[in-house]
């Protein structure tokens, strides 16, 4: 299934080391290649990489255990992962998973961290967090390649292809087709063309002038947090260091977000131009594009754009012929870890480690990659900054609000007629988006992903802006036919799965919260459990180490406030209800005693109110 002629693990690792180098920071990239080739990371690869890269075998194994797309044990020759975002579920993914499992002769259902692997090693079926195809789901990954628009017919065909052992290269091309679905173009999406104009202006007018334009524009980070871009660049530029780095955060992991996928497909030149402009401003010679593993299908395209820009003198040494303006970009892949969207965890991952958030301060602008000053910006931010430098800061200011200049690109999915990419000026109300995309009878909007806010119809006049509804772009719509508890269950499981495990509130609290949500969903909850959910959520929000833990309970706390009925209608009793069956727990004792008379049974609790 792989073109590589090398068959032994040791040989493959040696080849990977020879091609990609022995920098310990490339550990993750080597591991991803090994995983792709062998469907797991064999012990021999652990030993070989440990010996070659000066990392302990334990550090190698720890990395394998951390990233969801790396495995200690073999997966199937066809490794299939269904995207398990709530939007996939709403499009019927659960039914399709069952269908595929049945067709492949597997039994049970995959769960987080539990893949079904067929005995003959031909195929395995597991889950993935949102794969960024919500506008054309349900979706899955097969050996890392995205398959979209699943229906029963397509799943049936996939089962046949697997049974017949047809290699992926010979699967029907339309399975892998990813549409852009751009529905509304604004400042940024209006025109993908670039001829290096921003870079020319940088070279002609100098770094100070370019930075002044970014400053004038009021551009703020599009990843959701909204830090002023010019300030970030200035801090990095002025920080002491021997080297500087530019990092593009293309680890678009927030459930329901897929705009970076489209930007990297059709606007890659502008994104890379923005990175190059940033490098010119801060004085960086190296940059990284950290691409989430789910988008690895974009890798050849992105490499070819980089290559063309090098040939055009827009990247590499002596950019636009200017001495000393050297900058090049490497693409690093992620391997299934939501936390790596957080900039300091992303840097840890770039350095080949487990993606655990760093202590801040120091912030990456002073101590980032290799402890050197580093700018980490979102894909959309680099795109916008290229245009700002090309067309001037006032161009961006022409749209938006005082505090939120310019436009925001939204990824719209869920219950609407036209899911896809919508670009709006900041200040656009939620109801405008809903009517444009053809959403009807909308019960709730989940904005800015699972970590964001759950909006009820009373809030649809609120506006997309940093001062009201800041968002990285995810916009998931739920109509009144949906049970919002399904969303809560999906998000609670997502956060328990994606917690990096570093700090206590997120690691343990997230798992406790998931279990309580499941308890309520099973009809075993009581008022007490709801107050426990609030209690745990508050501790996570206040005391967690990083933003993941701070925001992970939002969906529970929001829905408890705004949609209490989704919980209350399932409460078995007002007061405490145990999650276990007391009478069943006595069955072993009854067996030992050889009795089964009424005196050995615990009957329905008295005083029941529900």
């Amino acid at each position: 299934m792989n073109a590589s002629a090398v068959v032994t693990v040791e040989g493959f690792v040696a080849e990977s080391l020879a091609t990609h180098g022995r920098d310990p920071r490339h550990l993750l990239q080597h591991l991803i290649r090994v995983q792709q080739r062998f469907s797991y990371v064999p012990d021999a690869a652990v030993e070989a990489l440990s010996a070659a890269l000066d990392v302990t075998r334990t550090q190698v194994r720890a990395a394998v255990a951390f990233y969801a797309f790396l495995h200690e044990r073999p997966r199937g020759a066809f490794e299939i992962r269904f995207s398990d975002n709530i939007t996939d579920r709403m499009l019927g993914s659960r039914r399709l998973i069952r269908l595929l499992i049945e067709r492949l002769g597997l039994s049970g259902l995959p769960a987080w961290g539990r893949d079904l692997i067929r005995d003959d090693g031909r195929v395995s079926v597991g889950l993935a967090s949102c794969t960024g195809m919500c506008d054309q789901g349900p979706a899955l990954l097969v050996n890392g390649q995205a398959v979209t628009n699943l229906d029963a017919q397509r799943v049936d065909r996939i089962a046949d292809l697997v049974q017949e052992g047809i290699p992926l290269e010979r699967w029907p091309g339309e399975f892998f087709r990813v549409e852009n679905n751009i529905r509304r173009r604004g400042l940024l999406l209006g025109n993908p063309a670039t001829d290096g104009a921003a870079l020319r202006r940088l070279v002609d007018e100098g770094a100070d002038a370019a930075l002044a334009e970014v400053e004038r524009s009021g551009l703020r980070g599009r990843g959701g947090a909204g830090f002023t871009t010019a300030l970030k660049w200035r801090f990095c530029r002025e920080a002491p260091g021997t080297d500087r780095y530019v990092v593009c955060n293309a680890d678009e992991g927030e459930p329901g977000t897929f705009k970076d996928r489209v930007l990297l497909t059709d606007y890659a030149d502008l994104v890379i131009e923005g990175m190059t402009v940033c490098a010119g401003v801060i004085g960086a010679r190296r940059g990284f594009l950290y691409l989430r593993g789910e988008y690895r299908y974009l890798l050849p395209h992105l490499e070819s754009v980089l290559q063309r820009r090098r040939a055009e003198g827009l990247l590499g040494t002596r950019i636009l012929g200017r001495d000393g303006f050297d900058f090049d970009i490497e693409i690093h892949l992620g391997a299934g870890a939501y936390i790596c969207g957080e900039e300091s965890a992303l840097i840890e991952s770039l350095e080949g480690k487990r993606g655990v958030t760093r202590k801040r301060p120091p912030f990456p602008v002073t101590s980032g990659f290799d402890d050197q000053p580093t700018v980490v910006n979102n894909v959309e931010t680099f795109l916008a900054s290229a245009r700002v430098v090309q067309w001037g800061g006032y161009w961006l200011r022409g749209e938006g609000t005082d505090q939120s200049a310019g436009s925001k690109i939204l990824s719209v999915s869920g219950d609407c007629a036209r899911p896809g990419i919508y670009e709006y000026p900041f200040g656009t109300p939620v109801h405008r988006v809903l009517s444009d995309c053809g959403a009807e009878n909308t019960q709730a909007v989940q904005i800015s992903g699972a970590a964001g806010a759950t909006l009820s119809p009373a809030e649809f006049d609120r506006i997309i802006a940093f001062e009201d509804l800041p968002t990285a772009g995810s916009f998931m719509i739920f109509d009144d036919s949906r049970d919002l508890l399904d969303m809560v269950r999906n998000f609670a499981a997502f956060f328990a799965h994606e917690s990096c495990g570093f700090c206590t509130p997120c690691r343990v609290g997230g798992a406790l919260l998931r279990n309580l949500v499941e308890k309520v969903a099973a009809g075993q909850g009581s008022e007490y459990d709801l107050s426990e959910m609030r209690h745990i959520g508050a501790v996570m929000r206040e005391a967690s180490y990083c933003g993941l833990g701070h925001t992970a309970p939002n969906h529970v706390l929001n829905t408890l406030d705004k949609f209490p009925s989704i919980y209350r209608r399932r409460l078995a009793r007002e007061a405490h209800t145990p999650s276990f069956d007391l009478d069943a727990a006595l069955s072993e004792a009854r067996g030992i005693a050889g009795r089964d008379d009424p005196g050995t049974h615990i009957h329905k609790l008295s005083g029941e109110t529900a």
Partner: protein
Amino acid sequence: MSKTFKLDGREIPFETGQTIMDAALAAGVYIPHLCHNPEFAPHGSCRVCVVDVGGRQVSACTAAASEGMEVDSSSEAIQATRRAILQMLFVEGNHVCPACEKSGACQLQAVAYYTGMLAPHFTHFFPRRPVDASHPDVVIDFNRCILCELCVRASRDHDGKRVFAISGRGLESHLVIDSASGLLGDSSFAASDKAAHVCPTGAILPKGRGYETPIGERLYDREPISIVGDVRAHEEEVL
């Protein structure tokens, strides 16, 4: 004249670069903590040292002290947060105090008492975790590990051995040992390593010395942790 900040109303002097924890410990004021050990770089993972600074909760071990800041480390709200965090640690592992030979000299237990925690409150996870008795001098009971990474840091930064690491993620995070078999006995670990002497719980214990001090007469049986401080400072008395 050095700079000061207010900790529960008391003026605490500090030098630039010190954390709230550094300054408090230097002034003899106790802020409960588990993953913090002044001999190693601040970690900030256990969150037990959470304090309130201007309405925001931060970990005292990582937050820099600054002139005039007002820090609340003793209100009921802060103690309640710490209690919940400790209860999370108790239900995450298998901490059976009455059956643990570290009982009475265990920092986890002592900090729990300090915050007023009397029961684990949350539903136990009861994970299945092994005990590693393969090493001749030291035993590791993973049931009691709270992932503070002190042994990881001590082995890496002090002993220069990198014997320990954290693997997995989320609730599956766990301590692993660097040897071909994964057993401590096959690693380069020695009882004289710093890493053998930093565990705040009973997860890493020397063999052959259990119960030398009878229960009831142990470190924290005599005085609370807020007076006697960390167990590592009293190692010889408590073994």
